[in-house]
């Protein structure tokens, strides 16, 4: 483990402990709970829930999650390019710096335009 990350690891364990310990400690410090079964009904503005909530939800959310994942992969490939960009410019390689990324973004732009036209993005 590179030495710089060990304080970060300890920090994340400390941060995980903060809500967990508070939740557990105050569970016992709290006065007991009174009230009948109605209190534990899910709150839906007074209407008693008939159907279970595990109903089916539409595919549009799936398309958004899928597109997010594809664009996330694109962002990850952009980060190394952005880090080296100024180095290439200093070495007068502007064409080499810009061209690969134009091809990469262009291909994905084609997909984006197709989606835009096909209406997959109208998330009304």
């Amino acid at each position, binding site marked *: 483990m590179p030495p710089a990350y060990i304080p970060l690891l300890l920090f994340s364990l400390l941060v995980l402990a903060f809500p967990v310990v508070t939740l557990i400690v105050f569970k016992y410090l709290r006065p007991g709970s009174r009230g009948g079964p109605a209190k534990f009904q899910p709150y839906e503005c007074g209407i008693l829930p008939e159907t279970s909530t595990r109903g089916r939800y539409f595919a549009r959310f*799936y398309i958004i999650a899928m597109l997010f994942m594809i664009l996330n992969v694109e962002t990850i490939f952009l980060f190394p390019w952005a880090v080296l960009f100024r180095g290439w410019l200093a070495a007068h390689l502007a064409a080499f710096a810009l061209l690969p990324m134009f091809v990469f973004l262009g291909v994905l732009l084609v997909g984006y335009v197709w989606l835009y036209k096909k209406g997959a993005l109208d998330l009304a």
Partner: protein
Amino acid sequence: MPIGHYLFLSLALFLIGAIGVITRRNVIIVLMSIELILNAVNINLVAFSRYFGDVAGQVFALFIIADAAAEAAVGLGIIIAFFRNRETVLADEMDLLKW
């Protein structure tokens, strides 16, 4: 840390993933086990890249992650289309090539 430890770890994850793919009847769990197998492969790649001092292994692992994303997108797309048509997600009820 000798490299044998990392090889044993990736072997263990690979086996767990393989068992998951074989025994589970629910296709989404099968897809998750495939992601686990891809992860085991990544561990091997990064371990050898670290011990041979050549960063190509990590670049290859990055491509594997990108590929896992594409595979998950299309795989789950097929499952959802199948579910909306046949209301089932169990592997042994998927016996139709064209629905």
